[in-house]
């Protein structure tokens, strides 16, 4: 019998309310209410209009062997008396390297700057880590916070100074257990602050003297058996506390699951039927429903969150899903519109001049040179699937339903951004490093972590708390504000419009109207058009922005903005020319 925690990487999202709902358990679905009730848009906010946090529910599964689909472990059943859960969250953003596009993915250069570089004393730098220490819950129905005030283990906690502006950080979240032996982890409150008297945010990713309350860290469990034995769950999990996702029912073209899958296919021999010995297996037949249609559907749905021409994204799925050779030309046409993975700097097809898809920014659209990659591409694995599809080599039988634990692993990651990483929303390019993983989708945890947490890292030893989030922007609101649309040359492309919409549809008395998600409607030259003029405004107002949900049907969707509490400026009739 072996035990594993699912989801392997859980994703919790910040909110300024003490209340919470739970992460969606399937990709592209609404969140789940803790009591199992049906989630409605009103549930995004609490009675006071604050944004509820999104928690993740972890479960231990037992497996008899490799072929066993597994089942959740419940206290009082099958010889298990209770489950002890331990979580350790930390935020190391203030002491890590500056985020400079993709420099560092293959190791940092000796001149790569550190954040807060004027603090050189290692002891002082260690104090800049937000580390409340680990928390353990030994039984069902308990809770504890990762806060300054809740420190049952008398851990030598380190928190930022208590008087940050505009917001101080007193907690990274909390954990609680339910009656079924499950663990719910919650993240921070979206509080970000600077130690400066007059806080300034002048960079999208690196702002010295700033902290935010996102975090990450390991989730481990120990089973206490009825005969008194203690069994440590071998396959531990990880939790990432990240910014909100404002269009939960839509998916990014490349999800974090896709990116990690591609890493695993090419490096960890997880799918020898797809790739082995350095060769893509041309006899592999991807499945229309499982491997192809989701990619095209995501492109199709982008029109709900960005301003793009709708007609070319209105795809004829019936014909595209038909393997008949009559449609080879049509499938080939669409394949030719997709930017090949190894040409991330190519805007238009050199063959026919058509702009290549996706119309999204890449990992490095700021710095020219050998690392430039201005536009996003699909993963190599996704592109291989599409090539097979274009040739008519695909099945239409539908994918098999995965075992429940695997499904949870996938759902959490499918709701995250898999590119572009500049730095991204949840995780950055470090997710493409095979050394990160104990097994596909499961982070290698560093054993025997003792305070203080390390200022460096050795991926061969595994990760410490805070080692995933430390790459990300500080405060996260800066990058979140600026990563709306990106001007490249005389063109605009988008970042990750599902997590952070650019244009949304609102219901008005005389119909549906498309407006910029953040700022002033109608005036493309307004300084707060698709983003706030000052990143500080996002630090203050992120929780007032609206969510995008499907108010139509699955067949005939109508994604509208709901639950916006922030006033939306419209140009006054007098100002119209």
């Amino acid at each position: 019998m072996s035990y594993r925690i699912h989801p392997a990487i859980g994703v919790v999202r910040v909110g300024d309310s003490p209340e919470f709902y739970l992460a969606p358990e399937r990709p592209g679905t609404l969140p789940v209410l803790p009591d199992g009730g049906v989630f409605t848009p009103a549930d995004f906010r609490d009675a006071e209009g604050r944004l509820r946090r999104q928690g993740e529910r972890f479960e231990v599964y037992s497996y008899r062997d490799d072929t066993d689909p597994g089942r959740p472990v419940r206290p009082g059943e099958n010889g298990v008396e209770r489950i002890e859960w331990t979580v350790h969250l930390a935020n190391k953003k203030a002491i890590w390297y500056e985020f400079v596009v993709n420099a560092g993915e293959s190791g940092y250069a000796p001149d790569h700057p550190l954040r807060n570089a004027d603090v050189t004393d290692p002891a002082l730098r260690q104090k800049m880590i937000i580390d409340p220490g680990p928390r353990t819950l030994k039984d069902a129905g308990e809770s504890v916070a990762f806060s300054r005030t809740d420190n049952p283990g008398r851990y030598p906690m380190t928190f930022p100074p208590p008087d940050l502006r505009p917001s101080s950080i007193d907690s990274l979240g909390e954990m609680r257990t339910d009656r079924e032996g499950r663990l719910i982890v919650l993240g921070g409150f979206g509080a970000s602050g600077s130690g400066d008297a007059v806080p300034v945010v002048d960079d999208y990713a690196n702002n010295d003297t700033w902290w935010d309350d996102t975090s990450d860290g390991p989730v481990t469990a120990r089973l206490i058996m009825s005969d008194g034995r203690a069994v440590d769950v071998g396959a531990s999990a990880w939790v990432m506390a990240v910014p909100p996702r404002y269009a939960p029912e839509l998916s990014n073209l490349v999800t974090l699951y896709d990116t990690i899958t591609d890493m695993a296919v090419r490096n960890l021999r997880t799918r020898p039927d797809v790739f082995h010995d350095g060769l893509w297996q041309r006899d592999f037949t991807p499945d229309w429903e499982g491997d192809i249609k989701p990619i095209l559907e995501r492109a199709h749905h982008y029109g709900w969150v960005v301003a793009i021409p709708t007609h070319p994204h209105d795809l004829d799925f019936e014909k595209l899903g038909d393997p008949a050779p009559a449609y080879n030309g049509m499938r080939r046409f669409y394949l030719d519109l997709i930017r090949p993975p190894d040409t991330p700097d190519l805007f238009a097809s050199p063959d026919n001049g058509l702009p290549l898809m996706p119309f999204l920014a890449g990992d490095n659209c700021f710095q020219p040179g050998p690392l430039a990659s201005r536009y996003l591409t699909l993963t190599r694995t996704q592109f291989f699937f599409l090539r097979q599809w274009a040739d008519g080599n695909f099945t239409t039988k539908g994918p098999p339903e995965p075992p429940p634990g695997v499904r949870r692993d996938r759902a959490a990651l499918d709701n995250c951004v898999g590119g572009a990483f500049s730095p991204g929303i949840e995780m950055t390019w470090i997710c493409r490093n095979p050394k990160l993983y104990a097994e596909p989708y499961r982070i290698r945890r560093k054993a025997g972590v003792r305070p203080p947490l390390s200022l460096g890292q050795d991926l061969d030893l595994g990760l410490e708390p805070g080692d995933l989030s430390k790459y990300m922007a500080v405060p996260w609101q800066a990058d979140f504000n600026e990563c709306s649309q990106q001007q490249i040359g005389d063109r605009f492309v988008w970042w990750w419009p599902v997590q952070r919409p650019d244009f949304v549809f609102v219901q008005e008395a005389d119909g549906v109207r498309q407006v910029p998600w953040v700022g002033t409607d109608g005036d493309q030259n307004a300084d707060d058009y698709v983003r706030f003029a000052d990143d500080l405004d996002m630090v203050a107002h992120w929780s007032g922005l609206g969510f995008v949900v499907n108010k139509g049907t699955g067949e005939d969707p109508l994604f509208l903005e709901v639950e916006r509490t922030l006033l939306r400026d419209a140009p006054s009739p007098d100002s119209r020319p």
Partner: protein
Amino acid sequence: MTPSPPPLLPLTLAHQPIGSIEELAAHLQTALTIELSTIPPYLCALYSITDPASEASRLIRGVVIEEMLHMMQVANLMNAIGVVPSLDREHVPTYPSYLLGHAAGGPFVQLQPLSPVLARTVFMRIEQPEPSPDAPAEGEPYDTIGQFYKAIELGFDACVKKYGAKRVFGRDTGFQRDDTYFGAGGGRLLLVHDLDGAKAAIEEIVQQGEGAQIQAPPVPYEEPYGGYDHYGDRPDGTYGPIIGTPWELSHYRRFQRIADGEVGLPPVYPMQANPSGAGLDGDTRRLSDLFDNCYTLVLTAIGEAVGKPAQPNPFFQTAFPVMQAALPALATLLMRTPLNPAADPGLGPNAGPAFAYRPRPIEEIVAEAADLLARPPGGLGGDYRQAWRRNLGAAHRALAGAATGGLTLNAAHG
């Protein structure tokens, strides 16, 4: 080689209103031919641009795709009233020629490489807006295509009034289709079942291209057109989502931007004007004929797609892949082929696509492409041989797919 003399100018006559379904059908067939006749000159200009990623390419490509949409839209209008559209020899335009049915003075339509003068004197005049929203309806001859469509719209009104909607729209052939347009341009291919549907279809054609009725940039906010879902030139000088207006999106305006030099003219192949296979010989002649064969194959397949209960689907099976892959590959190869082998192909004059009606069975076309592919000519240099292999290879792949896919599909459905 001497170009054939232009046909006599038609006489100007007062407009006789359309009074019967037969007359309506005849006008629609003329409209279909007019739409078709714009496509080869636009394609020629498009193919002549050496950098397909240039702004001018993007503008013209958008127009061509929308002209295809208009052609299919007219076919739907015809099928809606029980008349099968024809793309047979007698309805396929030859070049150079006056625009069919146009009043005295042109435009005189020629196959030429792109130039600002071509954009102004030919393309803008094809897409000339109506002089005013009150411009009268006109049959043949007409002053603007918008006025010709106005006559068709009144013809629908008159026929419905005279015969009743049931007799006008009750004889639908069943060959209308709304699945052949997936370009990046605006508009939609509409199915037509009643008078309102017919008017909506006509409005879309007129507004999109041949003379949007607006002659000046309209007032922002007053005439929103599809929200932010069009890309265009923004007030801050960048290119991105805009509240597009009929004016900005019209074909007339797009050609005007090229004619006025707002969009830089990219390098073009030095193609001879109004190319013809007649004066050619050897492999260049075969290449020219092969292009014409493919062009005719596309027209035949589209004709079947809108006029026959056909299986497999001739549009997706044949017309689409040949149009997408074979036509541009063969046309640009011709445009790289000097008429005099001693001439520098950068200077020309070079051959070009004749767009002549030249039917041939698809198996023979595939065999001809294969034969040519296997014999890259000497004497024009390595670059030319490489282009020969690449372009004829692409054309052959598309043609072979169009030919064999159908057989497989028949077997599968057998």
